[in-house]
């Protein structure tokens, strides 16, 4: 476009910058991604399939799905409630609450695991009581879920808040004036407006929940076939020098990441970019 010439660079500069960006993204992102799959198939597809179908891997996959299947819905309900509260009402302490919701982003995953060990571990506050009642939280599924919920806490809320803020409350107010009740307003007015943003938040939340390593590693105890999630299983295999098997499981997780990115692009396309975080 000729009329844009004063607001863009000369062609050589433009191509230099594009070239640089492509080199950066290739070396930094595409190369590692390719490496996962190449390493996974280095010793043939038989090793690859065996690594994913052995008992320890299958139970790790099952545990990962279970932990995400419980944590993600919990944080989705929370995200919807928090976004409704923050965007539809003005009250004292609102901005303080908003920064508290963001707090987990500033906390190391390892610390997210640590806090639950301090509460529920054998030497933790509730440790003796839990032991007396034969309830196990740390080194068991409940601990893994708590840690996962902690690290994925803000994801849905963070997507919904800017979206609902920008949409305002006029439609909801009109619905209420016309006699709609609370749930009707939410289901028929709000939900259709935020569905893509909600889906996007759930996608990100799920990707993080299934891939979480640090927090889960602290609370899981690495009991093979029992409390190993898929990312932890990758670590165990890697530390046992079973590199091809480790990368086979890593490839499965990388596929999940690619699927997430693909769905995300699709959501952005369908919603006309409105789901992109602002």
């Amino acid at each position, binding site marked *: 476009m000729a009329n844009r010439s004063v607001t863009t660079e000369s062609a050589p500069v433009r191509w230099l910058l*594009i070239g640089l960006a492509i080199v950066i993204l290739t070396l930094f*992102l595409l190369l590692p991604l390719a490496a*996962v799959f190449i390493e996974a198939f280095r010793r043939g597809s038989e090793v690859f399939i065996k690594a994913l179908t052995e008992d320890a891997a299958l139970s790790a996959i099952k545990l990962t799905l279970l932990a995400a299947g419980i944590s993600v819905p919990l944080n989705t309900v929370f995200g919807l409630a*928090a976004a409704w509260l923050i965007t539809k009402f003005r009250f004292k302490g609102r901005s303080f609450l908003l920064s508290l919701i963001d*707090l987990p982003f500033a906390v190391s995953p390892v610390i997210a695991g640590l806090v*639950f060990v301090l509460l529920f571990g054998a030497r933790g506050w509730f440790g003796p009581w839990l032991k007396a009642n034969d309830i196990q939280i740390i080194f068991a599924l409940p601990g893994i879920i708590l840690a996962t919920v902690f690290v994925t806490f803000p994801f849905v809320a963070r997507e919904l808040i800017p979206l609902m803020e920008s949409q305002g409350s006029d439609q909801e107010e009109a619905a*209420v004036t016309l006699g709609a009740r609370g749930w009707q307003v939410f289901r028929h007015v709000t939900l259709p407006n935020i569905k893509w943003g909600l889906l996007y938040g759930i996608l990100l939340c799920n990707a993080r929940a299934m891939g979480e*390593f640090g927090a889960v590693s602290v609370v899981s105890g690495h009991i093979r076939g029992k409390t190993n999630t898929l990312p932890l299983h990758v670590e165990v295999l890697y530390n046992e020098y079973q590199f091809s098997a480790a990368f086979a499981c890593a490839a499965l997780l990388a596929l999940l990441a690619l699927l997430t*990115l693909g769905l995300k692009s699709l959501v952005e396309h369908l919603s006309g970019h409105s789901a992109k975080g602002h």
Partner: protein
Amino acid sequence: MGKKRVIPGFGLSFGITVFWLGIIILIPLSALFIKAAGLGPGEWWKILTSARVLAAAKLTFGASAAAAAVSTVLGLLVAWVLVRYQFPGRRILDAIVDLPFALPTAVAGITLTSIYAPTGWIGKYLADMGIQGAYSPFGVFIALTFIGFPFVVRTVQPVMEDMGLELEEASAILGAGRWTTFRRVIFPVLIPALITGFTLAFARAIGEYGSVIFISGNLPMKTEILPLLIVAQLEQVKYEAAAVIASGMLLVSFFLLFLINLLQRRLNWQTR
């Protein structure tokens, strides 16, 4: 205001939000600080100034700051190219920027290690130049840059997209070259977003665990990061020491975030 009561659900949404925030985040975090406070200031001092903790802190904060700074430069360049130029493959590259967000950190860790190890695709060229990629502080820096740079791209990109061309046209009409226009007109508008991106990358890097522990080699005093040190204390059932290191780490990162926030408010106010 009577207006705010028009929309229902205040009580319910307030209840769910505060309850969930309380049991998942606030009570557990307070438990951490209370546990750490159980030790006296003398003990705190002894733990936090031990040579191993100091070495880990230096590496964690140093490598995180360096990685966030490099991420800011790379992120600015990539965001600019993605927003301003049309070229084949642009949309795929745009989508792939989020890869570090979506890729589990353990996967990032082992694959970066395989690439930057002395026998790896990039590591062998680095080795020829006498640089050790994986198993060194430089490896930690690489992993943290990988994790951090999408934050910068994704905070700067929307600001660039919303930027009108009027100011740039005016600048060109007044005789400024493209570089001058970028430096004097475009860049100042981007500064707040760049600082936000830097802060997000930095905060994430300080706490990062999964991608670092594979590539760092985890040598105490040399390539050990703070989160790993916490795990090491836990494995020796030294709960108190783990709590003290974690509390110290949280306090320092909250303080840094607060400082950067303050700086940003200043800048926002100046550029207005």
